């Protein structure tokens, strides 16, 4: 089991994730991830999806892994990466259930997911994390290594393998149907809005 709770109350997760890890995460949990993340956004998903439909091998093994929806800005000389915050997860909704079926255990983005994705998180035991959108400079500091592993021609949209340490996220959607966005809004909405 690779989920532990640190003295500051934040859960610490190592990759790859198992079902046992996923079931211990709840919407609203603050989490630090250490290990490997694969980046993929619109264009890379557009290439992965037909491969899945045809039952062909993907350029990355997704079982137990986490995909981070991001397209980083270029690194300055001497830096590992430029700015690297999340992009909107909802645009990947069309592709996500098929990846979860293959054993993908987590995605990181920002913004709401479809009902189909939330159902697939329950069915295949997986989790959707939120990173802070627009905090790309701060988030770059948690990336320790980066290499392009597929679709280099896509530039910022290529699939990159990141090694991260204590990468900060929140659990938005857990494998029980929990939804931080809905809970958070209910807690602070004022009736006369």
């Amino acid at each position, binding site marked *: 089991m690779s989920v532990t709770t640190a003295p500051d109350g934040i859960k610490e997760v190592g990759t790859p994730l198992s079902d046992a890890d996923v079931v211990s995460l709840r919407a609203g949990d603050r989490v630090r991830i250490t290990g490997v993340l694969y980046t993929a956004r619109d264009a890379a998903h557009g290439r992965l999806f037909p491969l899945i439909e045809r039952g062909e091998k993907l350029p990355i093994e997704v079982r137990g892994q986490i995909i981070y929806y991001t397209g980083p800005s270029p690194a300055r000389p001497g830096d590992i990466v430029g700015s690297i915050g999340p992009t909107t997860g909802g645009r990947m909704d069309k592709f996500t259930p098929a990846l979860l079926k293959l054993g993908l255990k987590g995605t990181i983005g920002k913004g709401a997911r479809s009902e189909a994705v939330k159902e697939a998180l329950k069915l295949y035991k997986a989790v959707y994390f939120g990173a802070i959108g627009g905090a790309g*400079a701060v988030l770059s500091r948690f990336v320790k290594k980066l290499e392009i592993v597929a679709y280099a021609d896509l530039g910022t949209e290529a699939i990159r393998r990141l090694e991260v340490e204590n990468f900060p996220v929140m659990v938005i959607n857990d494998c029980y149907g929990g939804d931080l966005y809905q809970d958070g809004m209910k807690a*602070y909405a004022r009736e006369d809005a």
Partner: protein
Amino acid sequence: MREIHVSAITDAVKKLCMEANLELEPDMLRAFDRALQRERSPAGKQVLQILKDNAEMARTKLIPYCQDTGFVVCFVELGQDVHVVGGGLDEAINEGVRQGYKEGYLRASIVRSPFDRVNTGDNTPAVIHVDIVPGATLGIMVMAKGGGCENRSKYKMLTPAEGLAGVKEWIIECVKTAGPDACPPLILGVGIGGTFEKAAILSKKALFRELGSPNPDPQLDALEKELLDRANRLGIGPQGYGGDTTAFGVHILTYPCHITSLPVAVTIECHAHRHKDVTL
């Protein structure tokens, strides 16, 4: 007739693009501080503090505030006594974008066609709006417009019978549908009146007013404050984690309209509100 060489325009645009992505304007930093004082949600407060830290890191470490370094939207106010020499105005602006995005290590986010989706590699072209105005100066306003929030921008043609009440409901509806996707705290640029395209352009231009400054029209100012208060009662909060700071501001511009029409356009802007301007 005053002559301005295109190289001066290119240099100015290049500088504005780089600065916009690395240094948030003071009006944005003040908005973070104001929100931190009244936000009740611990998660929301934490987000606001991290965004402040992010702005500081962008400025000092020269890492863009957001990895989406935006579509360059450029409003030009060209004095009618100015003669641009040495080339075309649009190409001068695009060359500035090209140089700024390359030298500033900013992301290329523009594809050459909506269908084949091949990246142009240098973030060109910009979206350029030019107004001819009296005088002998050239004003350039640059915004690096993020895609995630732009995707939540909306337009609706209301009827005159729906009136002010209908306008208010529609704008609040836009905040709800933007939700956590558009990176709240948001800024709403609102264009009301004119035609289909006029309302949309006004909604962009409205975002250039200093955040926190009053609308010069007292009635619109009251409307902006009412809508901001309502938006912040929705509970969406910073990043949608729940809280009191769903929006930092609502900026409205209006224009006369046809007796049949009540067009309303809402540009959704995220907290990475990167705007700079210069007058040549």
